[in-house]
Protein backbone atom coordinates (compact mmCIF):
# COMPACT_ATOMS: atom_id res chain seq x y z
CA UNK A 1 0.00 0.00 0.00
CA UNK A 2 1.37 3.40 -0.95
CA UNK A 3 1.45 6.19 1.64
CA UNK A 4 -1.79 8.01 2.27
CA UNK A 5 -2.08 11.80 2.35
CA UNK A 6 -5.02 14.11 2.64
CA UNK A 7 -4.52 15.42 -0.87
CA UNK A 8 -7.67 14.38 -2.75
CA UNK A 9 -6.57 15.77 -6.08
CA UNK A 10 -5.48 13.07 -8.47
CA UNK A 11 -2.54 13.65 -10.79
CA UNK A 12 -4.26 11.88 -13.66
CA UNK A 13 -7.77 11.62 -15.07
CA UNK A 14 -7.27 8.26 -16.75
CA UNK A 15 -4.98 5.45 -15.69
CA UNK A 16 -4.35 2.82 -18.34
CA UNK A 17 -2.82 -0.27 -16.83
CA UNK A 18 -1.78 -3.79 -17.71
CA UNK A 19 -3.34 -6.69 -15.80
CA UNK A 20 -0.80 -9.23 -16.92
CA UNK A 21 -1.89 -12.60 -18.20
CA UNK A 22 -3.13 -13.93 -14.85
CA UNK A 23 -4.45 -10.72 -13.33
CA UNK A 24 -4.50 -11.58 -9.64
CA UNK A 25 -0.95 -12.95 -9.80
CA UNK A 26 0.60 -10.60 -12.36
CA UNK A 27 -0.92 -7.22 -11.56
CA UNK A 28 1.70 -4.76 -10.32
CA UNK A 29 1.31 -2.95 -7.02
CA UNK A 30 1.15 0.31 -8.94
CA UNK A 31 -1.77 -0.81 -11.12
CA UNK A 32 -3.57 -2.16 -8.07
CA UNK A 33 -3.10 1.16 -6.31
CA UNK A 34 -4.48 3.28 -9.15
CA UNK A 35 -7.51 0.99 -9.41
CA UNK A 36 -8.16 1.59 -5.72
CA UNK A 37 -7.99 5.34 -6.34
CA UNK A 38 -10.37 5.28 -9.32
CA UNK A 39 -14.07 6.11 -9.29
CA UNK A 40 -14.69 3.45 -11.92
CA UNK A 41 -12.59 0.75 -13.53
CA UNK A 42 -13.15 -0.49 -17.07
CA UNK A 43 -11.54 -3.78 -17.90
CA UNK A 44 -10.80 -5.98 -20.86
CA UNK A 45 -9.85 -9.50 -19.86
CA UNK A 46 -11.52 -12.88 -19.95
CA UNK A 47 -9.33 -14.34 -17.25
CA UNK A 48 -11.26 -16.34 -14.71
CA UNK A 49 -12.07 -14.33 -11.59
CA UNK A 50 -10.84 -11.04 -13.05
CA UNK A 51 -14.04 -9.10 -12.42
CA UNK A 52 -14.38 -10.45 -8.89
CA UNK A 53 -10.81 -9.47 -8.15
CA UNK A 54 -11.26 -5.96 -9.52
CA UNK A 55 -14.42 -5.59 -7.44
CA UNK A 56 -12.31 -6.04 -4.32
CA UNK A 57 -10.36 -2.94 -5.37
CA UNK A 58 -13.01 -0.62 -6.81
CA UNK A 59 -16.78 -0.56 -6.24
CA UNK A 60 -17.67 0.20 -9.87
CA UNK A 61 -16.31 -2.30 -12.41
CA UNK A 62 -17.40 -2.38 -16.06
CA UNK A 63 -16.56 -5.08 -18.59
CA UNK A 64 -15.75 -3.48 -21.95
CA UNK A 65 -15.53 -6.74 -23.84
CA UNK A 66 -19.22 -7.56 -24.02
CA UNK A 67 -20.04 -3.90 -24.52
CA UNK A 68 -17.78 -3.53 -27.55
CA UNK A 69 -17.41 -6.68 -29.64
CA UNK A 70 -20.00 -7.84 -32.14
CA UNK A 71 -19.60 -10.86 -34.41
CA UNK A 72 -18.50 -9.89 -37.94
CA UNK A 73 -17.97 -6.24 -37.10
CA UNK A 74 -14.77 -4.32 -37.64
CA UNK A 75 -12.45 -4.45 -34.67
CA UNK A 76 -11.97 -0.72 -35.08
CA UNK A 77 -15.62 -0.15 -34.14
CA UNK A 78 -15.04 -2.11 -30.95
CA UNK A 79 -11.93 -0.08 -30.16
CA UNK A 80 -13.85 3.16 -30.69
CA UNK A 81 -16.58 2.01 -28.31
CA UNK A 82 -14.00 1.15 -25.64
CA UNK A 83 -12.10 4.41 -26.01
CA UNK A 84 -15.22 6.60 -26.11
CA UNK A 85 -16.64 4.89 -23.02
CA UNK A 86 -13.48 5.48 -21.02
CA UNK A 87 -13.05 9.08 -22.19
CA UNK A 88 -16.70 9.89 -21.49
CA UNK A 89 -16.44 8.46 -17.99
CA UNK A 90 -13.27 10.44 -17.30
CA UNK A 91 -14.98 13.65 -18.41
CA UNK A 92 -17.89 12.80 -16.09
CA UNK A 93 -16.08 11.76 -12.96
CA UNK A 94 -12.32 11.24 -12.94
CA UNK A 95 -10.11 9.47 -12.19
CA UNK A 96 -11.05 6.28 -13.97
CA UNK A 97 -8.93 3.26 -14.81
CA UNK A 98 -8.86 1.27 -18.00
CA UNK A 99 -7.10 -2.01 -17.38
CA UNK A 100 -6.36 -4.62 -19.99
CA UNK A 101 -5.05 -8.13 -20.41
CA UNK A 102 -1.26 -8.13 -20.74
CA UNK A 103 0.59 -4.86 -21.34
CA UNK A 104 -1.50 -1.87 -22.41
CA UNK A 105 0.99 -0.66 -25.00
CA UNK A 106 1.60 -4.03 -26.63
CA UNK A 107 -0.68 -5.06 -29.50
CA UNK A 108 -3.35 -2.81 -28.18
CA UNK A 109 -4.94 0.10 -29.99
CA UNK A 110 -7.48 1.76 -27.63
CA UNK A 111 -4.81 3.16 -25.26
CA UNK A 112 -3.22 4.93 -28.22
CA UNK A 113 -6.56 6.39 -29.22
CA UNK A 114 -7.26 7.53 -25.68
CA UNK A 115 -3.84 9.18 -25.35
CA UNK A 116 -4.35 11.08 -28.58
CA UNK A 117 -7.91 12.17 -27.80
CA UNK A 118 -7.07 13.09 -24.21
CA UNK A 119 -4.57 15.70 -25.38
CA UNK A 120 -7.34 17.54 -27.18
CA UNK A 121 -9.76 17.24 -24.29
CA UNK A 122 -7.41 18.38 -21.53
CA UNK A 123 -7.39 14.98 -19.85
CA UNK A 124 -4.23 13.72 -18.20
CA UNK A 125 -3.41 10.06 -18.86
CA UNK A 126 -0.86 7.75 -17.28
CA UNK A 127 0.03 4.41 -18.85
CA UNK A 128 1.31 1.74 -16.47
CA UNK A 129 3.01 -1.41 -17.76
CA UNK A 130 1.89 -4.98 -17.26
CA UNK A 131 3.29 -8.44 -17.88
CA UNK A 132 2.67 -9.25 -21.52
CA UNK A 133 2.40 -12.57 -23.34
CA UNK A 134 5.90 -11.89 -24.59
CA UNK A 135 7.23 -11.84 -21.02
CA UNK A 136 5.50 -15.15 -20.31
CA UNK A 137 6.84 -16.67 -23.52
CA UNK A 138 10.38 -15.66 -22.55
CA UNK A 139 9.91 -17.66 -19.34
CA UNK A 140 8.09 -20.61 -20.86
CA UNK A 141 10.53 -21.11 -23.74
CA UNK A 142 13.62 -20.03 -21.81
CA UNK A 143 14.07 -17.54 -24.62
CA UNK A 144 16.62 -14.80 -24.02
CA UNK A 145 16.65 -12.14 -26.74
CA UNK A 146 20.09 -11.12 -25.53
CA UNK A 147 21.65 -14.23 -27.04
CA UNK A 148 20.64 -14.23 -30.70
CA UNK A 149 18.26 -11.30 -30.89
CA UNK A 150 14.56 -11.59 -31.57
CA UNK A 151 12.31 -10.71 -34.48
CA UNK A 152 8.60 -10.53 -34.06
CA UNK A 153 5.73 -9.53 -36.27
CA UNK A 154 1.97 -9.44 -36.29
CA UNK A 155 0.88 -12.20 -38.68
CA UNK A 156 -1.27 -10.16 -41.07
CA UNK A 157 1.25 -7.33 -41.19
CA UNK A 158 3.96 -9.86 -42.01
CA UNK A 159 2.01 -10.91 -45.10
CA UNK A 160 0.78 -7.50 -46.17
CA UNK A 161 4.25 -6.03 -46.22
CA UNK A 162 5.94 -9.28 -47.21
CA UNK A 163 8.43 -8.62 -44.46
CA UNK A 164 11.69 -10.50 -44.85
CA UNK A 165 12.72 -12.83 -42.03
CA UNK A 166 16.20 -13.68 -40.78
CA UNK A 167 16.35 -17.42 -40.34
CA UNK A 168 19.21 -17.17 -37.83
CA UNK A 169 17.19 -15.01 -35.41
CA UNK A 170 14.44 -16.44 -33.16
CA UNK A 171 11.05 -15.35 -34.44
CA UNK A 172 7.68 -14.79 -32.79
CA UNK A 173 4.58 -14.33 -34.93
CA UNK A 174 1.66 -12.87 -33.04
CA UNK A 175 -2.01 -13.35 -33.73
CA UNK A 176 -1.47 -16.12 -36.22
CA UNK A 177 -4.97 -17.39 -35.43
CA UNK A 178 -6.54 -14.21 -36.78
CA UNK A 179 -4.27 -13.87 -39.79
CA UNK A 180 -5.71 -12.32 -42.98
CA UNK A 181 -8.71 -10.58 -41.44
CA UNK A 182 -9.35 -7.56 -39.26
CA UNK A 183 -12.96 -8.56 -38.71
CA UNK A 184 -13.86 -9.85 -35.27
CA UNK A 185 -15.07 -13.44 -35.19
CA UNK A 186 -15.35 -16.29 -32.69
CA UNK A 187 -15.66 -18.87 -35.48
CA UNK A 188 -13.11 -21.69 -35.60
CA UNK A 189 -10.42 -21.60 -38.27
CA UNK A 190 -10.06 -23.67 -41.43
CA UNK A 191 -6.73 -25.12 -42.64
CA UNK A 192 -6.80 -22.67 -45.57
CA UNK A 193 -6.29 -19.78 -43.21
CA UNK A 194 -2.66 -20.81 -42.84
CA UNK A 195 -1.74 -21.47 -46.49
CA UNK A 196 -0.57 -17.98 -47.33
CA UNK A 197 1.56 -17.61 -44.22
CA UNK A 198 3.04 -21.06 -44.87
CA UNK A 199 4.09 -19.95 -48.34
CA UNK A 200 5.69 -16.84 -46.92
CA UNK A 201 7.59 -18.73 -44.23
CA UNK A 202 8.82 -21.29 -46.76
CA UNK A 203 10.79 -18.51 -48.43
CA UNK A 204 13.01 -18.38 -45.37
CA UNK A 205 12.79 -21.75 -43.61
CA UNK A 206 13.01 -25.37 -44.76
CA UNK A 207 9.68 -27.19 -44.90
CA UNK A 208 10.75 -29.67 -42.21
CA UNK A 209 11.88 -26.96 -39.79
CA UNK A 210 10.35 -27.62 -36.37
CA UNK A 211 8.29 -24.71 -35.12
CA UNK A 212 6.17 -24.24 -32.03
CA UNK A 213 2.79 -22.82 -31.15
CA UNK A 214 2.29 -21.57 -27.64
CA UNK A 215 -0.79 -20.57 -25.68
CA UNK A 216 0.19 -18.93 -22.43
CA UNK A 217 -1.82 -20.07 -19.44
CA UNK A 218 -4.33 -17.56 -18.13
CA UNK A 219 -5.12 -19.45 -14.95
CA UNK A 220 -2.53 -20.50 -12.36
CA UNK A 221 -3.37 -24.22 -12.29
CA UNK A 222 -3.57 -24.53 -16.06
CA UNK A 223 -0.39 -25.43 -17.88
CA UNK A 224 0.82 -23.32 -20.77
CA UNK A 225 0.05 -25.25 -23.94
CA UNK A 226 2.96 -25.81 -26.30
CA UNK A 227 2.98 -27.93 -29.41
CA UNK A 228 5.78 -28.55 -31.88
CA UNK A 229 5.29 -29.44 -35.53
CA UNK A 230 7.01 -29.22 -38.89
CA UNK A 231 6.53 -25.93 -40.70
CA UNK A 232 4.80 -27.71 -43.60
CA UNK A 233 2.26 -29.14 -41.14
CA UNK A 234 0.97 -25.74 -40.08
CA UNK A 235 -2.31 -26.06 -41.99
CA UNK A 236 -3.10 -29.35 -40.26
CA UNK A 237 -2.71 -27.61 -36.88
CA UNK A 238 -5.64 -25.30 -37.65
CA UNK A 239 -7.70 -26.43 -34.68
CA UNK A 240 -4.98 -25.50 -32.28
CA UNK A 241 -4.07 -22.18 -33.91
CA UNK A 242 -6.76 -20.05 -32.28
CA UNK A 243 -6.52 -16.35 -31.65
CA UNK A 244 -4.60 -16.66 -28.40
CA UNK A 245 -1.73 -18.62 -29.91
CA UNK A 246 1.70 -17.28 -30.84
CA UNK A 247 4.02 -19.01 -33.29
CA UNK A 248 7.63 -19.51 -32.28
CA UNK A 249 10.13 -20.23 -35.01
CA UNK A 250 13.54 -21.16 -33.67
CA UNK A 251 16.58 -20.16 -35.68
CA UNK A 252 17.85 -22.60 -38.27
CA UNK A 253 21.41 -21.93 -37.17
CA UNK A 254 23.67 -19.46 -35.43
CA UNK A 255 25.11 -16.56 -37.40
CA UNK A 256 28.91 -16.75 -37.25
CA UNK A 257 30.93 -13.90 -35.81
CA UNK A 258 32.30 -11.71 -38.57
CA UNK A 259 34.25 -9.03 -36.75
CA UNK A 260 37.15 -11.00 -35.25
CA UNK A 261 38.98 -7.82 -34.23
CA UNK A 262 36.09 -6.69 -32.08
CA UNK A 263 35.82 -10.19 -30.64
CA UNK A 264 39.34 -9.82 -29.27
CA UNK A 265 38.73 -6.32 -28.01
CA UNK A 266 35.57 -6.96 -26.01
CA UNK A 267 37.61 -8.65 -23.26
CA UNK A 268 40.45 -6.16 -23.39
CA UNK A 269 40.99 -3.68 -20.54
CA UNK A 270 42.99 -1.49 -22.91
CA UNK A 271 40.01 -1.32 -25.22
CA UNK A 272 37.66 -0.50 -22.33
CA UNK A 273 39.94 2.39 -21.36
CA UNK A 274 39.59 3.79 -24.87
CA UNK A 275 35.83 3.73 -24.52
CA UNK A 276 35.37 4.89 -20.94
CA UNK A 277 36.99 6.60 -18.01
CA UNK A 278 37.50 3.16 -16.50
CA UNK A 279 39.91 2.99 -13.51
CA UNK A 280 41.07 -0.52 -14.55
CA UNK A 281 44.83 -0.81 -14.87
Amino acid at each position, binding site marked *: MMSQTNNNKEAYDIYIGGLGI*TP*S*HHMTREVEEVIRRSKEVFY*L*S*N*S*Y*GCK*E*YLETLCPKVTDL*YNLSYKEGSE*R*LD*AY*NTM*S*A*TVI*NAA*LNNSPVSFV*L*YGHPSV*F*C*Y*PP*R*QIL*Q*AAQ*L*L*GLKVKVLPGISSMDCIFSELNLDPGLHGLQMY*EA*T*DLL*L*RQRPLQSDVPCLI*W*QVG*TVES*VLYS*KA*SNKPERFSRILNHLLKYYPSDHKIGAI*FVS*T*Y*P*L*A*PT*KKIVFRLDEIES*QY*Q*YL*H*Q*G*VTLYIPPTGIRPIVDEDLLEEIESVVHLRKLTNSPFE
Partner: protein
Amino acid sequence: MTRSDINEVLNRVLNDYDFYNQLLTQPEKALENYILTKQEHEILMKQDDSIYSLLRDKELPVTEEDPPPTVVVVIVVVAITALLANLADEAPPVSPRIRELGEEIKTLHGNERYERILNMLDEMNGKPTENNDQ
Protein backbone atom coordinates in the same frame (compact mmCIF):
# COMPACT_ATOMS: atom_id res chain seq x y z
CA MET B 1 -28.35 -30.95 -7.31
CA THR B 2 -25.29 -31.47 -5.14
CA ARG B 3 -23.66 -28.40 -3.75
CA SER B 4 -20.11 -27.84 -4.99
CA ASP B 5 -17.40 -25.56 -3.70
CA ILE B 6 -15.64 -25.46 -7.07
CA ASN B 7 -15.97 -21.69 -7.55
CA GLU B 8 -14.60 -21.10 -4.09
CA VAL B 9 -11.61 -23.32 -4.85
CA LEU B 10 -10.95 -21.67 -8.23
CA ASN B 11 -11.15 -18.19 -6.73
CA ARG B 12 -8.99 -19.11 -3.76
CA VAL B 13 -6.27 -20.25 -6.16
CA LEU B 14 -6.22 -16.70 -7.49
CA ASN B 15 -6.21 -14.92 -4.16
CA ASP B 16 -4.35 -17.17 -1.72
CA TYR B 17 -0.86 -18.13 -2.87
CA ASP B 18 -0.35 -20.53 0.05
CA PHE B 19 -3.45 -22.44 -1.01
CA TYR B 20 -2.29 -22.46 -4.63
CA ASN B 21 1.08 -23.79 -3.54
CA GLN B 22 -0.56 -26.47 -1.42
CA LEU B 23 -2.72 -27.53 -4.38
CA LEU B 24 0.47 -28.05 -6.38
CA THR B 25 2.31 -29.93 -3.66
CA GLN B 26 -0.42 -31.66 -1.56
CA PRO B 27 -3.60 -31.49 -3.62
CA GLU B 28 -5.51 -34.07 -1.56
CA LYS B 29 -4.86 -32.15 1.64
CA ALA B 30 -5.66 -28.80 0.03
CA LEU B 31 -9.04 -30.08 -1.13
CA GLU B 32 -10.01 -32.18 1.88
CA ASN B 33 -12.45 -29.63 3.30
CA TYR B 34 -14.20 -28.82 0.04
CA ILE B 35 -17.27 -30.45 -1.42
CA LEU B 36 -16.55 -31.22 -5.08
CA THR B 37 -18.02 -33.51 -7.67
CA LYS B 38 -15.92 -36.54 -8.63
CA GLN B 39 -15.13 -34.94 -11.98
CA GLU B 40 -14.12 -31.61 -10.44
CA HIS B 41 -11.90 -33.38 -7.96
CA GLU B 42 -10.22 -35.42 -10.69
CA ILE B 43 -9.59 -32.34 -12.81
CA LEU B 44 -8.08 -30.42 -9.90
CA MET B 45 -5.84 -33.39 -9.12
CA LYS B 46 -4.67 -33.74 -12.74
CA GLN B 47 -3.72 -30.07 -13.18
CA ASP B 48 -3.72 -30.28 -16.94
CA ASP B 49 -5.66 -28.65 -19.78
CA SER B 50 -8.94 -30.04 -18.50
CA ILE B 51 -8.94 -27.29 -15.85
CA TYR B 52 -10.25 -24.96 -18.56
CA SER B 53 -13.52 -26.88 -18.56
CA LEU B 54 -14.10 -25.62 -15.03
CA LEU B 55 -13.44 -21.99 -15.82
CA ARG B 56 -16.55 -20.01 -16.35
CA ASP B 57 -15.27 -17.89 -19.19
CA LYS B 58 -14.47 -20.76 -21.52
CA GLU B 59 -10.84 -19.90 -22.14
CA LEU B 60 -10.36 -23.14 -23.99
CA PRO B 61 -7.31 -23.82 -26.07
CA VAL B 62 -8.45 -26.07 -28.88
CA THR B 63 -6.17 -29.01 -29.47
CA GLU B 64 -5.87 -31.84 -31.91
CA GLU B 65 -6.53 -34.32 -29.12
CA ASP B 66 -9.50 -32.39 -27.88
CA PRO B 67 -11.19 -30.79 -30.86
CA PRO B 68 -14.64 -29.55 -29.88
CA PRO B 69 -15.70 -27.82 -33.10
CA THR B 70 -18.29 -25.67 -31.43
CA VAL B 71 -16.04 -24.46 -28.67
CA VAL B 72 -15.97 -20.75 -28.23
CA VAL B 73 -12.46 -19.49 -27.82
CA VAL B 74 -12.65 -16.11 -26.22
CA ILE B 75 -9.26 -14.54 -25.89
CA VAL B 76 -9.12 -10.80 -25.82
CA VAL B 77 -7.21 -9.63 -28.82
CA VAL B 78 -7.13 -5.89 -29.05
CA ALA B 79 -4.60 -5.70 -31.73
CA ILE B 80 -2.99 -3.04 -33.74
CA THR B 81 -3.77 -4.94 -36.86
CA ALA B 82 -2.00 -4.43 -40.09
CA LEU B 83 -4.86 -2.55 -41.69
CA LEU B 84 -4.60 -0.02 -38.94
CA ALA B 85 -1.01 0.54 -39.83
CA ASN B 86 -1.90 3.85 -41.40
CA LEU B 87 -2.42 4.93 -37.83
CA ALA B 88 1.31 4.84 -37.54
CA ASP B 89 3.61 5.25 -34.56
CA GLU B 90 3.76 8.96 -35.14
CA ALA B 91 0.34 10.44 -34.56
CA PRO B 92 -0.84 12.27 -37.68
CA PRO B 93 -1.28 16.03 -37.47
CA VAL B 94 -4.54 16.98 -35.82
CA SER B 95 -6.95 18.39 -38.36
CA PRO B 96 -9.05 21.51 -37.73
CA ARG B 97 -12.14 19.27 -37.76
CA ILE B 98 -10.74 17.13 -34.94
CA ARG B 99 -9.83 20.21 -32.90
CA GLU B 100 -13.30 21.59 -33.46
CA LEU B 101 -14.85 18.34 -32.24
CA GLY B 102 -12.56 18.40 -29.21
CA GLU B 103 -13.75 21.87 -28.23
CA GLU B 104 -17.37 20.89 -28.82
CA ILE B 105 -17.04 17.75 -26.67
CA LYS B 106 -15.93 19.86 -23.71
CA THR B 107 -19.26 21.70 -23.77
CA LEU B 108 -21.52 18.64 -24.11
CA HIS B 109 -22.90 16.03 -21.72
CA GLY B 110 -24.52 12.62 -21.76
CA ASN B 111 -25.20 10.67 -24.92
CA GLU B 112 -24.57 13.65 -27.17
CA ARG B 113 -21.03 13.94 -25.83
CA TYR B 114 -20.47 10.20 -26.21
CA GLU B 115 -21.56 10.35 -29.86
CA ARG B 116 -19.23 13.28 -30.54
CA ILE B 117 -16.33 11.41 -28.95
CA LEU B 118 -17.05 8.53 -31.34
CA ASN B 119 -17.07 11.05 -34.22
CA MET B 120 -13.71 12.40 -33.10
CA LEU B 121 -12.21 8.91 -32.91
CA ASP B 122 -13.52 8.14 -36.39
CA GLU B 123 -11.88 11.31 -37.69
CA MET B 124 -8.63 10.34 -35.98
CA ASN B 125 -8.86 6.93 -37.65
CA GLY B 126 -9.14 8.60 -41.03
CA LYS B 127 -12.87 7.86 -41.35
CA PRO B 128 -14.58 11.21 -41.89
CA THR B 129 -17.92 11.43 -40.11
CA GLU B 130 -21.16 12.58 -41.66
CA ASN B 131 -20.90 15.79 -39.66
CA ASN B 132 -17.66 16.60 -41.41
CA ASP B 133 -18.23 19.77 -43.32
CA GLN B 134 -14.62 20.39 -44.17
